[in-house]
């Protein structure tokens, strides 16, 4: 049981890393980013190139930096000009980006499945509750907790974090206080995309790389974001852990319904509280 709960946290942690990027981007830009899964995928491939050559940690670093740059580019070139458009139009555009990114990766890396090595440092297992548990999975938990903690601290205790929270709720009022929300969102979208890159590399040794890999996790991340209450950081964290557990426990105790449970949970929560459980965005 302890192992099962841990596994739930692993998957939940991974979902959180992706979902929080979506939340960051949605908060500042009000963009429902369908390309986020493709960015995750791109990050994973970038990291792979170095990891396969034995430089796992360098791959992680390069992927995060490269994806941050991609994010900044996206913000300036695409999201900034989408501000005045309807949500649905931005969804369509990010969907177009998704298709383009998939093709770019297909052309660059091919369609064959690729798999990441586990970094040497984290290879092997430790015994937990009498059975072996991969060290790498603990690493994923640590990374997601570090990101969650770091992000929470950044948001709560720094000036910029305050601005981000303020702008996510009301960009107009925030900018009236003299804060350049465009510049802020450059950082935030960059950060969100970098987190997609980070999760891409971190997920690498668990998941198979393929140009469509992002699609299989994107829907789960959307569920997390919506259940957590669009734009809520804490909500996303708890929703991710919840969905992680539901995936694991569902697979064991309700296998026939496992894939539907997250959807049913979302339907239930949205009908009960249309704004998700972290409640309102003003």
């Amino acid at each position: 049981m302890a192992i099962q709960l841990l596994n739930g946290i692993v998957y939940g942690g991974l979902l959180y890393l992706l979902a929080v990027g979506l939340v960051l981007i949605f908060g500042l830009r009000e963009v429902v980013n369908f390309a986020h899964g493709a960015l995750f995928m791109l990050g994973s491939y970038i990291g792979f190139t170095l990891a396969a050559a034995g430089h796992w940690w360098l791959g992680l670093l390069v992927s995060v930096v490269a994806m941050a740059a991609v994010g900044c580019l996206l913000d300036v070139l695409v999201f900034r000009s989408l501000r005045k458009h309807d949500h649905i139009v931005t969804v369509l555009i990010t969907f177009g980006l998704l298709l383009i990114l998939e093709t770019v990766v297909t052309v660059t890396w091919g369609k064959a499945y690729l798999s990441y090595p586990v970094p040497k440092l984290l290879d092997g297992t430790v015994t937990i509750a009498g059975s072996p548990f991969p060290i790498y999975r603990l690493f994923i938990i640590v990374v997601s907790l570090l990101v969650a903690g770091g992000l929470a601290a950044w948001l709560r205790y720094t000036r910029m974090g305050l601005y981000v929270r303020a702008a996510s709720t009301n960009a107009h009022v925030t900018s009236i206080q003299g804060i350049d929300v465009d510049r802020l969102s450059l950082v935030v979208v960059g950060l969100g995309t970098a987190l997609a890159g980070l999760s891409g590399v971190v997920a690498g040794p668990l998941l198979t790389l393929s140009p469509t890999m992002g699609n299989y996790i994107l829907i789960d991340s959307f569920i997390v974001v919506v259940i957590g209450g669009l734009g809520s950081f804490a909500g996303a964290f708890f929703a991710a852990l919840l969905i992680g557990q539901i995936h694991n426990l569902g697979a064991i105790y309700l296998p026939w319904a496992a894939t539907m449970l997250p959807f049913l949970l979302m339907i239930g929560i949205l009908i009960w509280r249309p704004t998700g459980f972290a409640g309102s965005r003003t």
Partner: protein
Amino acid sequence: MTALSQGDVPAASSPLLKTRGLLAMALAALLLGVAAPRLVSSQLMLSLATQAIFDALLATSVGFLVLQNGRVSFGQAAFFGLGGYAFGVLVARGLMAAELAVLTALALPTLVAFLLGLVFARIAGVAHAMLTLAVGQAFYEIAFRWRELAKGDDGMAFNLPPRIFGFDSSLLQDPSVMVVVAWTILVLALLGLALFANSRMGQIAAAVRDNAERARFIGHDTTIPPAIVYAISALLAAIAGLLQATYNGYIAPQMFHWSLSGSALIMAVVGGAQFILGPAIGAVCFFILKDFAGRFAEYWPAIVGSVLVIVTLVMPQGIVGLLKAGWFRMRRQA
């Protein structure tokens, strides 16, 4: 994501074309449809046209929800699939006469949508999109995994009974016949939607979309009219699903999949979801685009993606929106 069209020149709201004009246009379109197989000799063209019309029906059903209720659905395939599956399963099992199966396949999704509409209509924006997505995926999962129903993920081929409504059913799998049937249905559907939009119920629904609170304060119930719009929209999707299942003699879980819902939404928005005709036009354009891009093998997604990005940036109001703006500009200059 609620109301696409807020702040635009309203299209559906200004008194629509007079009913007589509508009827004349519909009649002309119908005649054109009947003549088409005689004018076009290529079976391939006819078959592609048939499938483009199925897409057009589905896109119209999504667009109608945006137009009348201001709600974006990511799960319209649920009703498309339900229509196809109900018909396929009933016919394959011989559970009831084909005619009755047709009625059931149309009534079931309509009813489900009406009930869902009672609850979903009050939820807007991204949450609504995710809710509908969830419903669609729940149906997909059921179809995908319930092998006893229709062979799960493999999908199920089925034979039509020899005659449906007295007609030789094999004709329904002949593109030169099906294209006329589908076209006729599309034209009648569009006509029906235009008439509905002009009807009391349609106008009340439009009022609820515009301002649900005020609609209550002028004395209207605000639950039933949007739910009826859901039902009509689902009926259209079900017709499309039923036609496709009949034409292909095959049903598969992909009929429920969110990627189909997503494509339908793309078609609707690209065509111009704030116009009754927009989604159908968008569907045809999207169909042609995808068909064209298909020549470039695995590179087609990038082509479709690039066109999508450019088109939505250049004309956020969709093709029809752009045409209309152009038309007004021309008239103003003239």
